[in-house]
């Protein structure tokens, strides 16, 4: 090897990169993290849900010191049309005591805290520096080039955790071109309210407890997407993500979509009078398992969003990022024993991921993106039927109940046909198998 400045270069200080750097630094590896933002999380100003488990394995009881907004005790799921929503969900005290299930966090603060831990563990963090390309010698990744003067760095191994657009993975030809039917555009806002307002409006007793609401249904006009609301301490994160192709086909602009969401009669009372604090648009990979690339090359591994590790069904991403970052680091540590960082050794990384929930979850839903692409009506018509049925049942209008049920059954038949219904159910079952 020609030169070596560090053992490992991690590109990107998101959850994936920092998890990798943390494990490596703790093991005494000389690791440098390069982040293009002013500080980790600075480009990621908004709130989101952070899952406890993978992080807790890394930094036990991290939630005791990390900047957490609220721990989530209730998760609601809304099916929504233009005038109604049908709500399901779970609120449980099991999630109201340590070690908790998940948290709402403001990434700008959370990532900054995480980066402090990473630096304390012994990693070097370099901000405001953009990695422009991998340095490849004899077919092997030996370092990265940055946009700074005298900006080349060499190492045994490069871990690309540079997010969904991953320039590094693309330039090494690992990733297929993302097509607009495989990515969603997410827009989010933070709406400032007082702590009391958040508590009252979401039915929370204690300011430490939080609620999430995931929203889908016919209000999306047949586009594939999802909206959500999370409670922070004194604000609400509200956002909506829609497959880019659908936006184009429906000639919709995500900002307008978010505006109409905010003005929906079910949503407005929850956020009314609040002041928009921050706004962010970002791409979410939704291709699922089938879009996950080969995640290694000679001297190179890819983690987190860069490897398309997002579970769009459950809106999980940061946990998969942490898990994959950890495993990339562990793979490096094993490779170090033999001093062999070849593609073959590093391929263990992807095998490891296959053994965990990360790729198992994604594999489970692997056919879903195509199914939904083929059968968009699954997202509108069934939810609409449910909403209508519920409305019918709860409307007291002198119509006898048996007649109501008959009517609903009739609707089901006329809208989908029993055969169609059976087919759809079968397809879903088959695709998820």
């Amino acid at each position, binding site marked *: 090897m020609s030169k070596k400045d560090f053992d490992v270069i991690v590109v990107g200080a998101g959850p994936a990169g920092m998890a990798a750097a943390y494990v490596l630094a703790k093991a005494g590896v000389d690791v440098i993290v390069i982040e293009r933002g002013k500080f980790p999380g600075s480009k990621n100003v908004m709130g989101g849900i952070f899952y406890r488990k993978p992080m807790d394995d890394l930094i036990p009881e991290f939630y005791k010191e990390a900047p957490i907004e609220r721990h989530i005790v209730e998760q609601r799921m809304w099916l929504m049309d233009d005038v109604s929503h049908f709500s399901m969900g779970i609120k449980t005290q099991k999630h109201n005591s340590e070690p908790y299930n998940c948290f709402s966090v403001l990434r700008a603060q959370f990532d900054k805290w995480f980066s402090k831990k990473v*630096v304390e563990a012994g990693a*070097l*963090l*370099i901000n*405001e520096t953009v990695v422009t390309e991998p340095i490849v010698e004899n077919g092997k990744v030996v370092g990265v080039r940055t946009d*700074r003067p*005298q900006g080349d*760095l060499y190492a045994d191994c490069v871990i690309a955790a540079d997010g969904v657009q991953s320039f590094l993975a693309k330039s090494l030809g690992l990733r297929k071109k993302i097509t607009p039917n495989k990515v969603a555009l997410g827009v989010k806002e933070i709406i400032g309210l007082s702590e009391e307002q958040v508590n009252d409006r979401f039915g929370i007793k204690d300011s430490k407890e939080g609620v999430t609401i995931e929203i889908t249904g016919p209000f999306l006009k047949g586009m594939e997407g999802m909206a959500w609301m999370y409670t922070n301490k004194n604000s609400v994160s509200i956002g909506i993500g829609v497959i880019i192709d659908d936006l184009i086909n429906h000639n919709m602009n995500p900002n307008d979509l978010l505006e109409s969401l905010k003005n929906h009669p079910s949503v407005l009372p929850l956020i009314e009078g609040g002041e928009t*604090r921050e706004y962010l648009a970002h791409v979410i990979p939704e291709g699922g398992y089938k879009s996950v690339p080969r995640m290694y090359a000679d001297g190179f591994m890819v983690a987190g969003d860069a490897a398309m590790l997002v579970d769009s069904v459950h809106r999980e991403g940061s946990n998969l990022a942490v898990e994959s970052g950890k495993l990339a680091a562990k793979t490096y540590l094993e490779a170090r024993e033999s001093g062999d960082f070849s593609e073959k050794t590093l391929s263990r990384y992807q095998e490891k991921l296959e053994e965990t929930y990360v790729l198992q979850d994604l594999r489970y839903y692997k056919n879903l993106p195509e199914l939904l692409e083929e059968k968009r009506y699954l997202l509108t018509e069934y939810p609409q039927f449910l909403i209508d049925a519920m409305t019918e049942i709860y409307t007291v209008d002198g119509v006898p109940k048996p007649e109501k049920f008959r009517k609903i059954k009739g609707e089901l038949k006329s809208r989908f046909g029993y055969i169609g219904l059976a087919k759809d159910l079968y397809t879903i079952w088959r695709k998820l198998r």
Partner: protein
Amino acid sequence: MHFLVFIKQVPDAAQVRVDYETGTLIREGVPAIINPFDKHAIEAAVRLKNQFGGKVSVVCMGPPMAEDALKEAMSMGADKAFLLSDRIFAGSDTLATSYALWAAAKQIIKEEGPVDVFFAGKQAIDGDTAQTGPGIATRFNVPLITYVVDIKNVDPEKKTLELVRLLESGQEVIQTTMPCFLTVEEELNTLSYAPLPYLIRAAKTSVKVLNSKNTEIEAEYCGLKNSPTKVRKAFTPPKRERGEMIEGDSVDGIINQLYEKIEPVLKTMGKVQ
């Protein structure tokens, strides 16, 4: 040569908003930055170091989080960083601040050797007094050159240099001996994009903390109690209400409307009969 730059960490003024109900500033979530003028001071010192050799030290008085400002200064090329942090400094006015920074600078000189050029920003964007630099210079009894926009003809042998400074009516060129003390304008230079090795060195180097225990700072000159000026009250200026937009089909129509609205004011001034 040895250059010592005084830097202040300030809230990013562009993001500070006013809470008109309580009459206070909303600083929550406002990022702390290096005072913009001070960045140009660091840049100037680093350029001189690169040209003439030597080193750049930076010092910042502030709470522990001011370490971020010092780290950033090192990323810009400063070699040594000192954080002057102690509870006894709380509430200092500029007389007490310049005392503490002067005493800290003397400690830095003890450790790092005599200073040729001291640098400060023209003014801090929060306190806005522009008094700290002149205060420190006076205590060192070295020539003070404020509002510097250019540094020329540095002669390390003869220990002289020339400074171009802004005047109300133009500029003047001053020649002075070293050591001297400069307060600088943003026009002095454009910030350069620092090379990666600077950033790596900054990430590896720790900031040295100075306080009343490891310097010869005397508490009787520090803090609120020993500051001659005191803040009696702070308040936000009354909010100016948004006025009206004058609209119309033609520019002429709009100007006519505007004229009618301001005619009474013009009359009171005797501009129209």
